[in-house]
């Protein structure tokens, strides 16, 4: 008895020592609020870019990671038959293997109707789940909306703030049963995002609707990937589940209060609400070491030399999945007026300028695709070339490297607009735009 007690005391002491000795790392999301041009020319009103960046903290103990609650939604319509469905099955089973006990998973397939192949269940029943996945065969039409809805329904069974709630959709085709437009699916994504469920969309092959898939993912703050070859599915699933396992913060609510006289113009790339001086944006989740940001374009009034103008204050609230508490962050940013053009250039924040340029270019790219969709190829190319010129003129002085990079990229995009294989280019363009908008990790 005595020995037992002393052993348990010893173990207790070791554990205590281990906890106490752990590196006292901040388990807190980092908030950076900065202007691309913290110092601006006095005497004229001008545009400026305000970046609110959030960075996920390092995970010190991976074993404590928040549980994943994922629904894998597989398109099994006729077009998926053959290698595609086979690879999808393999990828799903592999993803299943990467999860551990305490995680929840469900598998939903759809063609014209939906089947819940594996209802939401704890991952401990691995063999049974894998067997069920192996029975999936392709055939039928495409009820994408219903498939995602059922998947969300399964996730909802174990929906919890401290879990990473995710629907992972794999589709190779166009939705044709139920709501089927990008707008409608975007709104579905938006409400799922509000519930704390993000939707990751994986477009396989060249037959899917990339607008629908990016909107569905975008409004719920999920990921999006274009997978041309079924053989790449396993890698994408692995990435997806890796990011899901690395989520450290959820329900990030960003509120930017602009000071009087500062006019918010637009948020680049992200969904946001602007009401008067208040700008709101939301991110569903943030992974470890991931940086996600909101770039707000504002108009600042003319100021006198030497004047220090408070520009905005930022409030961020989020759910910390490691401390299991909700946390608040706040910061503010000011702008300095100067007569020295040199100082403006010297003080420019390269990182913020780089993000801003990329987002600007991305907006242009989206506009160009819109024109291209209307068949106005030349106009679209003109827009991109003009945009590249503008970026160089406007930002070249502050951030020459990213400006040059974006210029080249926009020109390349312009060339690709009349590429013979536009369908494929459009999909990879959308994927690129999406990843930029959402600062996707893979």
């Amino acid at each position: 008895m005595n020995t037992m007690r002393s052993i348990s005391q010893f173990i207790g002491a070791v554990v205590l020592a281990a906890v106490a000795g752990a590196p006292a790392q901040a388990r807190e999301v980092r908030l950076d609020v900065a202007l691309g041009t913290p110092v601006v020319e006095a005497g004229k009103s001008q545009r400026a870019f305000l970046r609110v960046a959030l960075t996920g903290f390092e995970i010190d103990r991976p074993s404590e990671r928040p549980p994943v609650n994922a629904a894998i939604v597989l398109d099994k319509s006729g077009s998926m038959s053959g290698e595609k469905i086979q690879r999808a099955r393999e990828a799903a089973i592999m993803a299943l293997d990467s999860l551990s006990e305490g995680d929840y998973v469900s598998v939903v397939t759809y063609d014209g109707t939906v089947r819940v192949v594996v209802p939401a269940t704890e991952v401990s029943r691995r063999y049974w789940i894998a067997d069920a996945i192996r029975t999936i065969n392709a055939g039928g039409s495409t009820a994408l909306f219903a498939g995602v809805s059922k998947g969300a329904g399964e996730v909802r069974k174990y929906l919890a703030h401290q879990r990473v709630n995710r629907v992972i959709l794999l589709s190779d085709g166009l939705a044709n049963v139920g709501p089927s437009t990008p707008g409608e699916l975007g709104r579905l994504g938006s409400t799922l995002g509000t519930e704390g469920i993000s939707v990751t969309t994986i477009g396989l092959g060249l037959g899917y609707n990339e607008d629908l898939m990016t909107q569905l993912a975008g409004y719920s703050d999920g990921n999006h990937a274009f997978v041309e070859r079924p053989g790449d599915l396993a890698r994408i699933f692995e990435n997806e589940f890796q990011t899901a396992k690395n989520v450290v913060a959820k329900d990030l609510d960003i509120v930017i209060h602009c000071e009087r006289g500062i006019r918010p113009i637009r948020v680049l790339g992200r969904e946001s609400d602007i009401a008067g001086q208040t700008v709101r944006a939301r991110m569903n989740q943030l992974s470890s070491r991931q940086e996600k940001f909101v770039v707000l374009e504002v108009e600042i009034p003319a100021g006198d030399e030497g004047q220090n103008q408070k520009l905005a204050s930022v409030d961020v609230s989020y759910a910390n999945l490691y401390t299991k508490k909700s946390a608040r962050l706040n910061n503010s940013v000011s702008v300095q007026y100067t007569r020295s053009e040199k100082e403006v250039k010297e003080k420019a924040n390269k990182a913020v300028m780089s993000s801003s340029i990329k987002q600007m270019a991305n907006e242009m790219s989206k506009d160009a695709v819109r024109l291209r969709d209307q068949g106005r190829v030349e106009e679209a190319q003109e827009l991109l070339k003009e945009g590249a010129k503008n970026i160089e003129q406007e930002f070249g002085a502050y951030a020459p490297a990213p400006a040059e990079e974006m210029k080249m990229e926009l020109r390349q995009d312009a060339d690709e607009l009349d590429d013979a294989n536009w369908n494929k280019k459009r999909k990879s363009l959308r994927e690129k735009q999406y990843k930029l908008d959402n600062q996707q990790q893979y």
Partner: protein
Amino acid sequence: MKPKTLAALILIVLIPILVSGWLALRVLFDEQELLGHQMRSLVLDRLHTVDGRVQDQFRRLESDFLAAGDKLPMETGLLRAFVRQQPDVRQLFVFGSDGARLFPPEGEPVTEKENRFLERTVHLWPENAARGSRHPGEPGLAAGEGITSALTRPGAGEGPAERRGWYTWFSGVEQNHIFWWQDETGRLIGLELEPMRFLSGLIAALPDTGTGEDALAYRIRLIDSRGAVAYQWGGREPAEGEAALAGIFLSHPLESWKLDYYGAAPSAIGAGGWGLGLFLLAAGAALLGLGRFLYLEHTREVRLAGQRVNFVNQVSHELKTPLTNIRLYAELLEDALPESVEEGGKPRRYSNIIAAESQRLSRLIGNVLTFARQEKGKLALKPKAGRVDDIIKKTLAAFRPSLAARGVQAWLDAGAGARVMVDPDVLEQILNNLFNNTEKYAASGGRLDVQTRQAGEFTTIVVRDHGPGIPKSEAGRVFTPFYRISSRLTDQATGTGIGLGIARQLARLHGGDLTLKDARPGASFEVRLHTPAAGDNS
């Protein structure tokens, strides 16, 4: 076997099969109709259950909304936060009790989404109500009616006491729903449903296709107000243009939505048909078995009867020779009696009795042999030239002693003296049977009249007694072999029951008939024989 028996047996088998088959078919058709009806009501039940689930969604939203609404802070920022955090809610409006719009705020900056909400609901707002557009056929607003009056007018809510309800309208092709209520302070609050969220939640709550066998049997489709399939489940793939087996419209506020059920019509006829076929087969087999049993029984009895008749026939044949000897020696004995033995003396009387009884016995045997021959179809006529009256006199003479012994006097009114072709043995046998009947059954009448007449080629002999007679009801059956009239008549008499039948057969063999005529008292038999005139050479 006789064809009649075979036909009867076939009928015994066929009729029950046909009757039971027909009955079973009727039952089957009735059952099918019933099954179809039950199936339909089952399907309708199922669809109504689905409708119930849809209604549950609305009820859940209502209670969620009302609970949230109680705590709704009347501050723009907090209201916006409320909208942002409610996945079911697309937008929100609040009107003060004075009719002023509190949210989305008037005279304050609104977000892009709020602005779109105001545009979407433009026809609802008081100042625009007059030019409000509404979807044809939809319960909407009367011209000139603003949102406050539209939503709270009588009938808009579920009752005057509960000032709340669902309001549905179309913006473009999209159907929108607002749940509105008026709280105690008189504020009018309306929450616009996010249609995509509503549909998505509904889909999550409705069944999926499942993996069972049953899942392949049907397909249920939820059809939205545009006529498009919003959701469907069940593994059955309806053919192009296949009509739904049943369908219902959903309840308020989704009354423009439909549920259609596709499935195979009840296939009871298949299963039932098999059942019926099997039943008929079994019944047929059973009846065939019964038929065969009856047939075997019948042939066995016929064979047995045949054997008996054969036996009796053989016995009769065997009896014939000793009987002839007895008769011969009885006559020799009488002849050999000395003259001294007086007429009524004992020895003469004894020998007479022996002769009479042996005569009676040979008549009996003759009947049996004739019957057997008749059964075998070997009865043959051997006509000879002779006089009918002679034969009658001879036969009557043979009967006289025994008739007299019973107190019966015989009278002959002879009228058939012509020489004709007649079978004397046949005629004698006919008469034997008739006289014997009189002797046995009608002795009480005390008199036997025999009348003979000849006309053309026919001779008619009427034999009439004055006994108890034969009741009319029995008249038809006295000729049936082995039939004897009920006990009263035959109480004291014995007999084989074949006499009259044989007599009639013989009469018919002789080209005539034996019939029973009306006579009161007693019975009168008329024998008609075909007796062509005899040629002189014979």
